[in-house]
């Protein structure tokens, strides 16, 4: 599903300043992998490498059926539609309602029929529990509701992979748990999740696997529970 093979990433031209060093792993279907570690260890960079927002300096990345080295600029949108993204700051389009935010994603891929869009948006919003808020603007929702909307947007194309960058970072503990429970339901139904977080208790509770990053390297790769397990 997601495979990194001896991946190195450097932002500056200085030879000794590596953001990530010698990263190799394979993540399969229905895994929920937590990338752990304090700020600046390379968690977000690793997520950006998966969606190819950043290109590796060396090494090979395979995501779904895509191989980074073989991709053209035109292929990137197709890769990104296979990877739903959830951010700490939600990144919803502020001047669109929740319904419009999701509809926008469908129009982007050529779905222009209103009734088809309405059905798809309703289905996804119901699955994350905010269908009743569909006509609100993001600023009119609580943090937890905005994150649910962001998850709904990530799900609209039914991607096999969801990447979440500190998805509970802006939420209180209770709401954070609700969001993680929602993500877990996706995992159980077959979606692969990669979550960058510094909240270890959440990882212990929900992850099937944790990767601890230290100074740009994977310091620890731990399998916590089988992929089919649901935690309450």
């Amino acid at each position, binding site marked *: 599903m997601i495979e990194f093979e001896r991946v190195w990433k450097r932002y500056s031209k200085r030879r000794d300043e590596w953001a990530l060093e010698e990263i190799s792993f394979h993540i399969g279907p229905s895994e929920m992998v937590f990338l752990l570690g304090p700020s600046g260890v390379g968690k977000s960079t690793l997520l950006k490498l998966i*969606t*190819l*927002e*950043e*290109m590796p300096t060396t090494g090979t990345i395979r995501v779904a059926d895509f191989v980074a080295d073989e991709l053209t*600029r*035109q292929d*990137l*949108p*197709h*890769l*990104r*539609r296979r990877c739903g*993204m959830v951010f700490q700051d939600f*990144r*919803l*389009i502020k*001047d669109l309602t929740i319904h419009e935010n999701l509809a926008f*994603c469908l*129009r*982007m*891929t*050529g779905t*222009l029929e209103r009734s088809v869009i309405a059905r798809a948006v309703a289905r996804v919003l119901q699955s994350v529990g905010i269908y009743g808020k569909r006509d609100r603007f993001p600023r009119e929702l609580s943090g937890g509701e905005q994150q649910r909307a962001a998850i709904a*947007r*990530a799900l609209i*194309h039914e991607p096999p992979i969801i990447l979440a960058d500190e998805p509970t970072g802006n939420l209180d503990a209770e709401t954070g748990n609700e969001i993680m429970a929602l993500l877990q339901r996706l995992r159980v139904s077959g979606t692969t999740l990669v979550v960058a977080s510094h909240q270890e208790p959440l990882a212990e509770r929900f992850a099937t696997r944790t990767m601890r990053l230290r100074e740009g390297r994977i310091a620890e790769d731990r399998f916590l529970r089988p992929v089919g397990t649901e935690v309450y």
Partner: protein
Amino acid sequence: MRAFLFFAGEGVSQLRRSPAASVAAVTAVGAVLFVLLLLMLLSQNILALSERLRERKGLSVFLDPQLDQTQVSALRERFAGFGEIAEVRLVTRDEALRGIEEELGSPGLAEVVGENPLPDVLLVTPAPHAADARELDVLAREFEAYPGVDDVLYGERWVRALDHGLGVVRRANALTGGLATLAIVLVLGNTLRLLVLMREEQLAIMKVIGATDAFVRAPFVMAGILLCLIGGLVALGFLRVGFEVSRSLMPGLQFLSLPMLLLYLGGVALVGLLGSLVTVEVSIRQLERRGGMLQL
């Protein structure tokens, strides 16, 4: 078609989100295009006049203003005696001025220009066998040799004189067209860059959720085309108003023909399309290179 309407709607949304910048751009584009339209109108009317003159078969013999009535009459009788001439009619300078006033529908012209600048003119109608261009040219040269004759013009010569004027207007037109294109591209460049910058966060989100380059760019390109077309139509509206006002002074004026209007609007849309494609591409690439939210 549905996709086109969707992107057109998105283009309108882009403009509505930045009303001040949009109005400024429409005004600038409209002003530039108004100058272009004015020159197009001028060249079309000169062309039409040229066509009308080409069809005239007579010669106009312009006489020295110093000649007195006796000398004028003598010349008239002498020309009338030519075998190739069917009729010679004298149009005095006062009659000529009244004629122009009538043609332009401007009765107060004499008062505006002060002293009548026109000379007496002998309008010479050649006999049917001498009405072709070569015979007229021979006659014109012959008349010109007479003392008291300042100039002789006939259809082809009028046309040549007008062609020269038309050439000047056309060159001015081409130059203005080029400058207008450049000005429009610059205006579009600034406006679209502003729109792109204002939407930077949204564009970044779009790219992350899998928008294609075409989907990201299309609304801005549509906005650019719309800016040009609206500016073009505003300029056309002003020209029409100006034309209606001028027509009461110069009834002979013709408005731009339908093919010219279609050519104009097509050209404006094309410049809008190409200008927008280039400027949107440059703006987005600049954002990407800057390493901002849009970085790939």
